């Protein structure tokens, strides 16, 4: 407890920074849940693929030797690579795993099975990426991309930690700033986009009554595709931030984070964009405080207990579902 009080801002800011990662991933869960009422179990893999895209693109460009302004350039490239890749993977996922089910109007839980299957496929494919290269004898040439596929791949970008300014007793570093800053920028853009644009209303309309939405001229498939793309891009951004914070990624890096991010989405009120953001930050900070007080090994207990308690008192999350309920 003393520890927390003495280093309050440090714990808060590190918590917020990781919370930002949760929040961005949570957006993907919430968006898809919003339109399809589906827990997109494979979203964590979308994130993971984004992280690899960043690693590979930066490796290919020789980012490890960069310094100074070059690093900034590579950062931008890394974000772009991860976001584009994740968006594409998400789109592909929708096309392969969910659209056929929708066309057959299958019961909601079966989509969960497809999602679980897709999640296995995406993460295992990454874990087996050496195989196809082996067949063509390329695995030694491409060792830095293929390597030992089950092992951690580091981000080849050396960013020296620079302490920039103080917040009370904590000196915020450039990495904190990049992570938090870009997360906030992205969230504001998305929030405005969804709120201001017709798309936002379209998404909600599809969620509430697909048939009536079609009667209003809402193209359900387009709305769904768009939500996957946006959710994917956000996961890609989160992937780059994750790399900046953790430094490495792996074929199974998504799973744990996915569970947490989904928790964050529910915490805030699933289907509610701002809820996802709030949920992400709350979870990140709660974990940070929790591990300060009880020790790092209790951090997940704190997170999940918080979730359960909040849902007991607010059964539809902190901000509630944006989708109201029909009455009796």
């Amino acid at each position, binding site marked *: 407890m003393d520890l927390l009080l003495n280093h309050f801002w440090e714990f808060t800011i590190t918590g917020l920074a990781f919370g930002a990662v949760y929040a961005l991933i949570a957006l993907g869960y919430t968006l898809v849940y919003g339109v399809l009422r589906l827990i997109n179990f494979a979203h964590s893999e979308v994130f993971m693929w984004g992280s690899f895209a960043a690693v590979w693109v930066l490796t290919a460009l020789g980012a490890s030797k960069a310094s100074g302004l070059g690093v900034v350039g590579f950062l931008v490239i890394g974000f772009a690579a991860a976001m584009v890749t994740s968006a594409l993977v998400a789109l592909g996922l929708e096309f392969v795993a969910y659209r056929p089910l929708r066309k057959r109007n299958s019961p909601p839980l079966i989509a969960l099975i497809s999602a679980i299957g897709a999640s296995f496929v995406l993460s295992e494919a990454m874990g087996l990426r050496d195989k196809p290269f082996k067949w063509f004898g390329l695995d030694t040439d491409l060792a830095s991309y293929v390597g030992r596929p089950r092992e951690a791949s580091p981000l080849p970008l050396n960013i020296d930690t620079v302490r920039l300014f103080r917040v009370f007793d904590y000196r915020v570093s450039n990495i904190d700033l990049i992570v938090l800053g870009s997360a906030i920028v992205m969230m504001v853009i998305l929030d405005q986009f969804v709120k201001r644009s017709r798309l936002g209303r379209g998404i909600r309309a599809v969620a509430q009554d697909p048939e009536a939405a079609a009667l209003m*001229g809402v193209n359900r498939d387009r709305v769904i595709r768009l939500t996957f793309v946006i959710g994917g891009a956000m996961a890609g951004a989160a992937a780059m931030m994750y790399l900046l914070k953790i430094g490495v990624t792996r074929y199974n890096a998504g799973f744990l984070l996915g569970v947490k991010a989904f928790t964050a989405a529910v915490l805030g009120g699933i289907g509610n964009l701002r809820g996802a953001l709030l949920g992400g930050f709350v979870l990140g900070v709660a974990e940070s405080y929790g591990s300060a007080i009880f020790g790092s090994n209790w951090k997940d207990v704190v997170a999940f207990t918080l979730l359960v308690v909040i849902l007991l008192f607010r059964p539809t999350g902190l901000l509630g579902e944006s989708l109201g*309920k029909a009455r009796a």
Partner: protein
Amino acid sequence: MLLEVDDLCVNYGRIEAIRNVSFTVGEGEVVTLIGANGAGKTTTMKTVSGLRPVRQGSIRFEGQDITAVPAHERPVLGIAQSPEGRGCFVGMTVQENLDMGAYARPDRRSPKIGEDRDRVFGLFPRLAERRTQVAGTMSGGEQQMLAIGRALMANPKLLLLDEPSMGLAPKLIQQIFDIITEINQQGTTVLLVEQNAAQALKRAHRAYILETGEIVREGSGEELANDPAVKAAYLGGDI
């Protein structure tokens, strides 16, 4: 002809809901479909608005074949529907629901939308009162008003109304039919499905009678209203 439906067959799996249905709706007309429960009225409406796939036959709108046009593109062409069972967006407010009605309008950014909204609020003061109430918590009749208002917001060329009077109080039913006549006079074509056959026939230029999936009779509203067989079956005489 604004709408030409030719030899339409629609199935629910093996069940044939409508068979070889052909009818037309001319520009500026009010046309009504009447028939008993399960006759296929709603199915016909849903097919015209694109929610049900066509097994056989064709639908033409303004001379263009729209049989294969997906539902969400039909509002752009100028078809709007107030569906059976209302289909309000239960989690959105009244105003948001109305705005959804204008979703596909090309002039959706113009101030015209505001005027139209005010017009709907004028027609249904209850909606104006409850502008920010979540639609899911509105009473049955209020939701019905909202569904009709929402369809009006689309400013369509062809308005499809599926049992607009269902769940409405007698006084309001009167009003709904007045509204239909009024907007028709302002140039909107209306295809109307009603259980309240007496009223519907009174307001319609022409009418079709649908029975177990087939059209069995057609004529002007007045003609059918005075046909003794129709009277006996649908106007219910005196209860």
